[in-house]
């Protein structure tokens, strides 16, 4: 067991957590040291998660026993296809975000708070990776608490009125979500006597239709939906996104993906498909809520003037696509939903980085003032436009691919209405994103047109993300190679 390759699951989680605790110690003496520590940890993490996904692709899901104790007693880490896939997304996007934060946070928060920022950032990363890899329901809850507490603090880190209000709102709703999760997990634990997901599947079968199990299921579904920002429970997003520094929403898009992953785990790994699709049709409920999210949040996004709030509503609509894919519950639908996790992470990261650069360089966040921005910040606006196209779903970009998959799945499963929802939402997306692009390129410039481009440390991750939006659309087979077995494993076909 001495070769490190077999310990990759735990190393991937530990590395950011260790770095999180090293940053305040080094950062107290040398304030600049937090950046190299964070970047080193996150770069290593990208390599390790890449090795992890290669290992999973080759040998199938990896089971890792913490402390050497076998599953029903010990805590088990399970890295299946979906978990490895999310690990790669999380490591890569957080690395890019950390590079972007280097100058951005220095400008917005100052040198001292940047140390705390990176501490919380790395803690959140560790929590995200932990929640993706765990095979234990209670451990999942603990990781969600790590995520939640560090993201409340990150949202309010600027300490100004808007940030604190956003964090407060997020804290209230998030705490309710956590309590519901805990209650639900408690119900399942009391009735089955186990917290291990694989073990719980077996023990749940004879007692499926008991009130306590159904209560546990519904409490968990609501709790995870709050974390995932599903439609009626997304109300924490706009304030939290608008109040936080623009790098935090990038992390938050990952948080809602992990919320969706937890729901997938609950619905497809703990409860099995015939039960959640036919006996208690949770998935049908999910599809309708997701459709409502897609349409209603897109319409609200059109009415927003603050670009950060617009992007927040767009996120709430986009998590709807993910849930719609999950809710359709066919292999194709799941593939589409999971593909959209990747695509939305890249696209939204690029959009928020561009908005962060714009706010940091010019102070503009109202869409009406965007006139002439294409001349002042040509590269930033170029990246923004590319990502906006991907959001709308214009063919060579990745947004088109996932929407296409979900629409295809909807038609194949006979629920035409969802394909219509997707089409309508693409039009709505076009309205609110192209409005911004139109103002920036052809709008009346407000003041001087001096070129004022963001520094290189902000441009590089932003441009990489924008290129990623196109590349992922062209090379869609690469993620699908992981997602096909993932969907088959989840549906048990």
């Amino acid at each position, binding site marked *: 067991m001495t070769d490190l390759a077999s310990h990759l699951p735990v190393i991937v989680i530990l590395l950011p957590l260790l770095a999180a605790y090293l940053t*305040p110690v080094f950062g107290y003496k040398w304030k600049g040291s937090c950046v190299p520590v964070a970047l080193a940890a996150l770069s290593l993490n990208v390599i390790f998660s890449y090795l992890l996904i290669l290992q999973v692709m080759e040998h199938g899901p990896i089971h890792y026993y913490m*402390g050497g104790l076998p599953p029903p007693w010990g805590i088990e880490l399970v890295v299946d296809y979906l978990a490895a896939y999310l690990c790669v997304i999380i490591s890569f996007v957080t690395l890019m975000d950390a590079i972007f934060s280097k100058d951005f946070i220095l400008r917005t928060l100052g040198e001292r708070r940047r140390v705390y920022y990176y501490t919380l950032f790395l803690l959140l990363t560790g929590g995200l990776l932990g929640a993706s890899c765990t095979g234990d329901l209670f451990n999942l809850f603990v990781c969600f608490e790590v995520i939640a507490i560090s993201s409340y603090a990150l949202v309010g880190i600027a300490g100004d009125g808007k940030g604190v209000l956003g964090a407060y709102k997020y804290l209230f709703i998030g705490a309710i979500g956590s309590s519901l999760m805990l209650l639900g997990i408690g119900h399942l634990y009391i009735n089955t006597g186990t917290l291990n997901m694989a073990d719980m599947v077996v023990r749940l079968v004879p007692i499926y239709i008991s009130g306590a199990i159904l209560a546990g299921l519904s409490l968990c579904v609501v709790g995870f939906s709050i974390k995932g920002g599903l439609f009626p429970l997304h109300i924490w997003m706009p304030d939290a996104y608008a109040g936080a520094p623009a790098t935090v929403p990038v992390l938050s898009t990952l948080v809602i993906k992990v919320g969706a992953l937890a729901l997938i785990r609950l619905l497809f790994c703990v409860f099995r498909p015939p039960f959640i699709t036919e006996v208690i049709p949770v998935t049908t409920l999910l599809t309708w809520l997701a459709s409502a999210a897609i349409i209603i949040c897109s319409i609200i996004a059109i009415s927003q003037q603050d670009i950060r709030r617009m992007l927040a509503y767009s996120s709430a609509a986009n998590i709807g696509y993910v849930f719609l894919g999950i809710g359709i519950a066919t292999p194709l639908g799941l593939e589409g939903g999971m593909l959209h996790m990747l695509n939305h992470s890249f696209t939204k990261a690029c959009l928020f980085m561009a908005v962060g650069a714009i706010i940091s360089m010019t102070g503009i966040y109202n869409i009406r003032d965007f006139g002439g921005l294409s001349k002042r910040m040509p590269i930033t606006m170029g990246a923004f436009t590319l990502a906006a196209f991907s959001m709308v779903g214009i063919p060579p970009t990745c947004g088109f691919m996932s929407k296409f998959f979900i629409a295809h799945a909807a038609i194949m499963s006979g629920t035409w209405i969802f394909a219509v929802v997707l089409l309508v939402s693409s039009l709505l997306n076009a309205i609110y994103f192209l409005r911004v692009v139109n103002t920036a390129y052809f709008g009346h410039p407000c003041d001087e047109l001096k070129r004022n481009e963001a520094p290189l440390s902000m441009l590089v991750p932003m441009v990489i993300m924008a290129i990623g939006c196109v590349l992922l659309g062209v090379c869609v087979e690469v993620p699908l190679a992981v997602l096909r077995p993932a969907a088959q494993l989840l549906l048990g076909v």
Partner: protein
Amino acid sequence: MKAEDIFKDLIVRTVARLMVPFILLFGLYVLLHGHASPGGGFQAGVIIAAGFILMSLAFNMDELKRRVPLTFRLITGSFGPINYVVIGIACILSGGYFLQYGVVPLPSLAPADVSAVLISAVEIGIGITVLGMVTGMILSMTGGSDDHT
């Protein structure tokens, strides 16, 4: 009367002076028995921090701030998790799973004893971290903290 003088009466001070050594001793007991009985690092850290807080309430908040400065709190706050990871990695390097204490070759100890020693080491780290953090929280709440930027 100043806010700090509220508790400066003889009874509070005398009782605090009598109780604090026992609180600290009880904290140490809970800490060192954590691997075999109810208790452990978190509880012990809170108990020991409670002793510090009682002292500072009875005597002087500035004294607590002077004795537990920000550097100390930052380092203790990070010590526990780092210690935990280091011990976990030591288990991996000795050929076991993460936190499989028994495999670490400590001289002249049976595997079960090695587990007890290493669990205690992890718990002591956690205790120190909780001690630093709880004291830091009290200092933040009373406004005595020096880390407001």
